């Protein structure tokens, strides 16, 4: 059942990534995916002892992903004056 909870969180994260139009909304979805992975590894940690350590690393990598996402959002806003995902289309030149 714990895996079902993790999969539910993962589903919400996927929905947010696919449907959100603002870049910060996509970052929220990615954070939900990170939380679901951590929950999954912690649940698996009951049987596999390394799961807790990997959950810890997943949480910390989620923080790095958040910082990177917010920096890209700020850059897109400074250049395009919008926080929409459409601003990313012309970011790569």
């Amino acid at each position, binding site marked *: 059942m714990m895996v079902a909870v993790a999969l539910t*969180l993962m589903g919400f*994260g996927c929905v947010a990534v696919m449907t959100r139009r603002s870049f910060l909304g996509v970052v929220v979805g990615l954070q939900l995916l990170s939380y679901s992975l*951590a*929950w999954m590894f912690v*649940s698996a940690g009951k049987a596999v002892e390394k799961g*807790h350590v990997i959950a810890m*690393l997943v949480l*910390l990598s989620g923080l790095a992903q958040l910082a990177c996402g917010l920096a890209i959002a700020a850059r897109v*806003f400074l250049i395009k004056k919008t926080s929409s995902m459409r601003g990313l289309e012309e970011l790569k030149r």
Partner: protein
Amino acid sequence: MMIWVSAAVAIVGAAWAVFTRSTRSAGLALWVCGLGVGGGMLSMGLEFVAITQWILSTLSVLGFSYFAVLLGEEPQEGSRGIYWKSKLAPLGIGVMFCALVWFAVGDVPENPKSPAAGISEIGRMVVTEHLVSLEVLGIAFLVVVIGAGVLSRSEVTRKESS
């Protein structure tokens, strides 16, 4: 019992984060979801990972609130409903979080079955068995810090926009 309450809080927070329109509300919902996930970890006997989860969730919501205002979503001043919502919603969530921790601590097993549940054991495993993962994570943090600084430089922004 508490693990199911925590799971419900996490799922409700995730649903709120997905379906709300406001970015700041999404950040607050992400915080609620993180609190629920941390409560679940605490119920499983992982105090250290749960506290790390709560700290990271709080940092996330602070960043989201700051960037939501920075990217143009300003609070509407003079609206009484928003005023009370901004005061009562965090207060209510904080009280619920304290209650969740209070009841979850009682359910924490004193002798977790997993040997990796203790703080010292997690630290030992990180610096021995998962040293490469720790190094990769450290390099990733370094690259992110440098990259965020480069992306946010005003000189680069002016050059791109001209």
